[in-house]
């Protein structure tokens, strides 16, 4: 415990490093998965190809990927960018299927209705399909966020500073508290991002808000109708 109190600055710095390494991949993987998932959902042929390929991405072992990426992308071997790219790929692997499923989950009646109202092609996507697949996208994004935060620790092996550095350093120097601090801090960061996404979902998807108020409102609505 003394180690933790005397190294709070270090833990805080590594936490910030960890956020810098894991937040961009979460955002990027969402942005990349969006068009891919749309394409996968749009045509039967592209669905098979895109979902298979993106699924296979997840099967690539992370360590070899870290060493191959610099050769492909042209980054230096120790650049944190390698980690960001690798984590983005893993995020895309998870997220493409989620986007495709999310878009497919939109009620066909609602889509028909949007066409009948006079929404044009792209406005149906942006204003109807995308928001309505929101709950599924959010669920997928939460998995991606937690998984990315956890995977980012591996970066320590290739020299990208993160909370993972606390494990590697703790192992090398035999400081148990440092290892535990790394694990606990990683879990906390994951919970933090997950919580942030939940809050974001509540704000962005107000019609999905569960429980109390809604149920009561619906019941009240029925009563009003029966009594009038």
């Amino acid at each position: 415990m003394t180690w933790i109190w005397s190294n709070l600055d270090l833990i805080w710095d590594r936490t910030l490093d960890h956020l810098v390494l894991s937040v961009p991949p979460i955002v990027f993987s969402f942005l990349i998965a969006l068009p891919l998932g749309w394409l996968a959902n749009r045509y039967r042929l592209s669905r098979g190809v895109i979902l298979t390929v993106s699924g296979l991405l997840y099967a690539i072992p992370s360590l070899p990927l870290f060493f191959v990426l610099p050769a492909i992308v042209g980054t230096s071997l120790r650049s944190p960018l390698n980690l960001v790219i690798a984590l983005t790929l893993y995020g895309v692997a998870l997220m493409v299927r989620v986007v495709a499923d999310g878009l497919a989950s939109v009620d066909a009646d609602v889509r028909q209705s949007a066409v009948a109202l006079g929404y044009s092609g792209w406005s149906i996507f942006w204003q109807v399909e995308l928001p309505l697949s929101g709950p599924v996208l959010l669920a997928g994004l939460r998995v991606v966020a937690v998984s990315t935060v956890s995977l980012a620790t591996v970066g320590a092996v290739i020299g990208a500073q993160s909370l993972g550095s606390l494990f590697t350093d703790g192992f090398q120097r035999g400081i148990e508290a440092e290892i535990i601090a790394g694990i606990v801090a990683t879990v906390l960061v994951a919970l933090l991002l997950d919580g942030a996404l939940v809050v974001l979902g509540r704000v962005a998807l107000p019609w999905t808000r569960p429980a109390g108020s809604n149920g009561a409102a619906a019941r009240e609505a029925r009563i009003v109708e029966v009594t009038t």
Partner: protein
Amino acid sequence: MIEFRSVSKQFPDGTLAVEDFSLTLPSHQTTVLVGSSGSGKTTLLRMINRMVDPSSGAIEIDGVGIHTLEPVQLRRRIGYVMQNSGLLPHRTVIDNVATVPLLRGTPKKNARQDALALLDTVGLDRSLADRYPSQLSGGQQQRVGVARGLAVNPNILLMDEPFGAVDPIVRAELQQELIRLQSELGKTVVFVTHDIEEAFLLGDQVVILREGGRIAQIGSPAEILANPADDFVASFVGADRGKRALHLERRGDGDVLVDSEGRLAGVLVPGGRPHETKAGPFPGPGAPAQGGEPQ
């Protein structure tokens, strides 16, 4: 006026949904397309706003071939009400009603004001404006659907089994509401249903469809009831089962109308208004006092 001229529709999978369909739908009247599933009634309806384009033939609205019109623009000036309301679940009631005006570029403030007024028109309390559709009852959702269909004050209102998914009491209420609205607004309404009672209740012109959009009979409800064109129509309106063939029978407590299978169908009332029964000349001895009360 909407005109179908020898319209056919074959879907890519080979189904011939509509074959050589011709019909004139007069303006400011309600035309009901009625038929079982597979009769192509919804396909016909969706051809009017180009959600479905005919494989051959032409459709004209007030003399303009709709194939010359841009589908999205066309849809924005035709009201559309569908089963299960088709409301956008992620938009509040008020935003749902204002959808098409907003798409057409009406300033948000005006669109919302108009939408609030429309809630009054369809008999919804303004306090529901900020609810989401899932927070409403089925009947209320359907009313919002009608309000949305009326939002751009369209000449034409397409209604695809709009009351099919609500319970009978609410349905009867919504039907009366539509009759009231139509008497005030005088839209050209095209109404699709499989329920012949609903068709007779709402239709100025009723079109009974067989499979493949073939017309079995066109006419006013009275014309069809009095002279079913063939066995199919007779069976569809229930005339063959004696349901429509009523005769007067003297029972112990008064005169009643009975169908040919002996089921009670109602009473004969001068003037056709239930509340006049008490004053009418036929109250049989011992007739229950509440017998003539409106339900």
